Structure formats: structure tokens, C-alpha cells
């Protein structure tokens, strides 16, 4: 199954800059390996790049956070992992899930992999649940699809157990999405993602539309379930503080690239890339009243994908940009044993 046995894992040879050794907690084989993933959306013949060469690895039981502003390509990345992108998306690179490339699978193989090996927790609070089917039926549908021998009764029993596990009373299986609160819908979504016991769960902004108390509950639940089951988790959020407290490792994305990668707590406290610093500063540190009163924003907007030149995509907004930034495309560089960042200043200072 596992084609990749190298650990620590070497980055594929995509960048011109230094290779990045990953500090893995265990020598576990790669559950997910993404190599030089590129996605662009074709708009009237013009390709608009959304993901521009991303390398990622995830071991079983590991938790990876993916942070960035809306439009940075993090949701496209999530969609690409199960090939859920719209028809005008062009994807290249490799996405190895348990060693086999998702991008090269036939539709039949792909359908078998979807939800069974990797599932997605969508924004359940919004419209990710079908409004006219009971939530129980929607969960059971996944179970029956991937375990065709299961009887309807077994599936129903399993649905009840799943719901109880995520803290929703089992009788709610008969409810329709609009009869549930935002938090409950998100829990249902998590139960649904767990239904086929996948090895990888991708949570795409699972707490965005929820209020703070419920956010914390849902995150705790997610983290706990992932730990219990030894599932790999990719948690996508625009909120770096959430990721820092939940994830083993965090990657920050900007304009379709990963600009910094490292342990969650370190990235939040002392980021190397100026964009990651700005992102960390945009959220108040819990308990730190000063940062709450004066949150620092970042001037300007993310770049238009049509206008990306050869230099660093962040240069126009970067407070510490130098002439080199506009000219050279800067790839990830080693900061220290467990961190890497794509910034000219990194190589110099470290």
C-alpha cells in the first residue's frame, strides 16, 4: 500500500532552493503526499492559477493546519484532494493517498476512495447538507454506499452511534437540516465524515459560521475524535489562532503557495515569513489585552491571479520587501530543523 517509506521525507525536487527536512514526530509512512500540485481555473480560455506548486505530507494520526486569506487557494487544495473541483479546473502534479495517485485514478476507483479513505467536513452550518433529506438518511447513504452488504437496520444503528459520538442525540437522525442549530449541523457533518472510518479527514473551514463558544466545542470534538481513531486531519481555516492551538503542524498559504510551514505554536508566536507574521498579528492572543485592543491588519488586497509576475507574490504588500523580491521567485527555505519559509530574509538571518 504505502509506496513511500522514506522518513524523514525529502521534498520533491520542485524548487531551486533548499530542501526541507520535515520534523515528523514518528517514522510513520506518508498517508498523504502532495507533490508540486498546480491548479488553475480556465476562464474563457485564460488559465487563472489558484494553486501554484504545493508540496505537502501528512502522516497517519498527524494534524496539519492550512491557513490563509480567502482566495489563497486553500479550499481549491482541499477540493483537489478528492477531485471535486469544477470542470474548468486544470490540475497537475501528484496527490498520493496511501501511495496511489488520486489524479490518475479511474472514476470507479476514485468513487471507492472518496469518503472511504478520505472524507471532507464541509461547512455544515451553511448549505453542505441536503435540505430536503433527513440528516440520518444522508449519513446512512455514505455507509450503505461503501459497505453495500450492510443492511438498512445496521446502517441506522451506526448512524445513531455516530450522532451520539459527536454529541447529537440519536433521535435527531430524523431531523432535517433546518431543524438543527448551526453547531448541531456541523456536528452532523463531522459524524458524516466519520461514517466510513476514513484514514484522512479534510476539514474545510469547519467552524467559520459558528459563534465562538460553539467553535471551541466543535474543534475540541474534532481533535478528540481524530486522536482516538488515529486519523490524519487537515484543518483549513483563515483563523491562525485556531490552527495554532489545534494542529501539530501549520502551513500558511498565500497566492496559491505555501509560504511558511512549521509547528503550530511556533508559527503563531514567532513567524519567519512577513505574511505569516501579519496573519498571526491579525488575531488577538487570548489573554493578551494589548493585542485585542490594537489588532494589526495588513494593508492591500491579495494579488489578482492574472497579474502574478515572476517575483514574490507578497512583495507588493510586504513591509520588508527588497529589490530582489520583485525579481526572483523565492521558494521555501529552511529556517531551522522544524520550520521553513519562502522569504529572502530567511536564508540570511538563519
Amino acid at each position, binding site marked *: 500500500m504505502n509506496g513511500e517509506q522514506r522518513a524523514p521525507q525529502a521534498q520533491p525536487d520542485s524548487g531551486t532552493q533548499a530542501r526541507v527536512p520535515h520534523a515528523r514526530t514518528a517514522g510513520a509512512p506518508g498517508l498523504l503526499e502532495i507533490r508540486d500540485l498546480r491548479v488553475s*481555473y480556465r*476562464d474563457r480560455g485564460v488559465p*487563472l492559477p*489558484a494553486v501554484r506548486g504545493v508540496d505537502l505530507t501528512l502522516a497517519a494520526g498527524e494534524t496539519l493546519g492550512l491557513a490563509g486569506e480567502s*482566495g489563497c487557494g486553500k479550499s481549491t487544495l482541499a477540493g483537489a484532494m478528492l477531485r471535486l473541483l469544477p470542470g474548468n479546473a486544470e490540475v497537475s502534479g501528484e496527490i498520493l493517498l496511501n501511495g496511489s495517485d488520486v489524479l490518475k485514478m479511474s472514476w470507479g476507483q476514485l468513487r471507492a476512495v472518496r469518503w472511504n479513505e478520505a472524507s471532507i467536513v464541509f461547512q455544515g452550518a451553511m448549505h453542505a447538507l441536503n435540505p430536503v433529506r433527513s440528516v440520518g438518511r444522508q449519513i446512512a447513504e455514505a455507509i450503505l454506499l461503501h459497505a453495500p452488504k450492510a443492511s438498512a437496520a445496521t446502517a441506522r444503528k451506526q448512524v445513531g452511534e455516530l450522532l451520539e459520538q459527536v454529541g447529537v442525540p440519536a433521535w435527531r437522525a430524523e431531523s432535517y437540516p433546518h431543524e438543527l442549530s448551526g453547531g448541531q449541523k456541523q456536528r452532523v457533518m463531522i459524524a458524516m465524515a466519520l461514517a466510513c472510518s476514513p484514514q484522512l479527514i479534510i476539514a474545510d473551514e469547519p467552524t467559520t459560521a459558528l459563534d465562538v463558544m460553539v467553535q471551541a466545542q466543535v474543534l475540541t470534538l474534532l481533535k478528540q475524535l481524530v486522536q482516538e481513531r488515529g486519523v490524519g486531519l487537515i484543518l483549513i481555516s483563515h483563523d491562525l489562532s485556531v490552527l495554532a492551538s489545534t494542529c501539530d503542524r501549520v502551513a500558511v498559504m498565500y497566492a496559491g503557495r505555501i509560504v511558511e510551514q512549521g509547528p503550530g505554536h511556533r508559527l503563531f508566536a514567532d513567524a519567519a515569513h512577513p505574511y505569516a507574521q501579519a496573519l498571526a498579528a491579525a488575531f488577538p492572543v487570548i489573554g493578551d489585552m494589548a493585542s485585542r485592543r490594537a489588532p494589526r491588519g495588513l494593508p492591500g488586497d491579495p494579488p489578482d*491571479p*492574472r497579474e502574478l509576475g515572476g517575483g514574490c507574490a507578497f512583495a507588493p504588500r510586504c513591509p520588508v520587501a527588497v529589490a530582489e523580491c520583485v525579481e526572483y521567485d523565492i521558494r521555501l527555505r529552511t529556517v531551522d530543523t522544524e520550520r521553513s519559509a519562502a522569504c529572502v530574509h530567511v536564508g540570511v538571518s538563519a
Partner: protein
Amino acid sequence: MSAPAAASRRRSSPWRAFLRDREGMSGLIVLTLFGLVAIFASLLADPAGLEVTKADGPLAAAPSWDYPLGTDHAGRSVLTMVIHGSQVTLLVGLAATVISMLLGTLIGIASGHFSGLFGGALNRFTEWFLVIPYLPLAIVLATVFPPDVPKLIAVIIVIGVTSWSGTARLVRAQTMAIEARPYLERARALGGGHWHQMSRHVLPNVMPLVLANTTLTVSIAIIAETTLSFLGLGDPLRVSWGRVLDEAYALGAIDRGAWWWVLGPGVAVVLVVRAFNMCGRALERILDPRLEGRS
């Protein structure tokens, strides 16, 4: 990510967008052709050919070089009748649409603007007309219409009066959406009267929608005209497509197997109605950004 680009491209003038719309343009071309035929009918075919007594063709004959669409039971050329019939059909269709649009816009704006009993009553009234089947109502109205009114005018009014409710419903919804906008709050705060608010602020914003709806209403009105004529409720003194078809049915086209008698006017009806529908769909696409991406 492509949303802003698409939006800016779409913001060019609606007329330009219409010119680029293949469906809308083919509809417009067909309509122009039929319009020219109606205007120059007398030049294209001698109106004398419409009179049973002056017709000199063979009786109920299949299409030939002299009679490209064949002849009817009295030896009249079907082509001549189709050419002249376009006048009444288009005139009734357009005139009825004008009445329908006026009624629909007025009632729609008023029922959307006025809250309380008056607006509520108007809304009920609209709903009633929406639900009541239009053909029985039109039949009843046409039967009880004062006989001293020319039949042509009567048919126009009957169709206009029975076909406004769809427009009124659309306009009402749009009016309520516009009235919720801040600048209307300001107009109200500055003491703008009902008339001022409706004519200066609501009407200009409702007009594009009414325009797109007009072409669809014309197609409904033309179907209604031919149907009423077919049922014998049209003007007996003037030739229209519906009346040619009524005569074909009543005077034995089926038993004679005289397909040409039906085909000429029938194809004309379908072509014109379809062309209006095509223009309407194109306009809807251009004016309603929600429909973007539909064909």
C-alpha cells in the same frame, strides 16, 4: 476568483450584449422579416385575393408555382391570406401587450408600494387573475362585450385584460425590493409623495424588467389571439392567422387532407411566437445577472 472579471465584462451596454446573443438575434431577424411583411402586405399580395368572390384559383389545391402555399376551399391563395393575416395578428398581439404591460406595471407598482388594505386588496386581485384560467375568462369577456364596439378592439381589450397578472406579480416583487433600498428611505424622509417615489424612483428601476417581460407577453398575446379567432371569437371581417386556421378546421381541411391550408398559417404562428420567446429569453439573460451561465 473569476467573478469580478465576468461582472465587468457583463457591464457593457445591454444592447451590445443582445447583439452578441445568437438566440436573441435570430429572433429579432425573424421578427423584422414578419414586420416588413405586415407593413408591405398590400405590395406583396393583392388584397383582392382575400375576397371569396374574386378568388380565381383552383379549389383546395395543393401548393404549385402559382400558389406556393396552395389554395383554400374557395380558391384563394393561402400565401395571400398568410401575408395579410400577419397584420391583424401582429397588431392585436402588440396592442394587447401594451394594455397588458400598462395594467401589469401600474397594478404591480401600486400593490408593491402601498401597504395596508389597498395594497393587500390589489395583491389579492392579482393573485386571483393569476389563478383563474385565462381562456374561459377571455371567452366569457368576449361574449359579453358590447356588440357596438368593433370586434378587433374588443379582442385587444379582452386579451390585455386577461394577461397582465404575470407582469404585475414580477413588478410587485421588484418594487418591494427597490423600496427596501436606502435611497428610497431618503426620498421618503425628504417628504417625497407617493407619486414622486413611484414615478421617479421605482418606475425607472422596474422598466428593464418590464421590457424583458414584454416580449414574452407578446408571444402569449399572439397565442391568445389565434386561439380566440380559432374559437370564432375574432373579427369575422378581417383575415388573421387564427381565422384562416378556424376556416380550415370548420370547412373540411382535415377531411380533404389539405395540409397546406393548415401548414402555412400554422408555421407563421409558431415562427413569430418562437421569435418573440427567443428575444424574451435573451433579454432575460442579459438583464438578470442571476441567470448568468444559462443557455
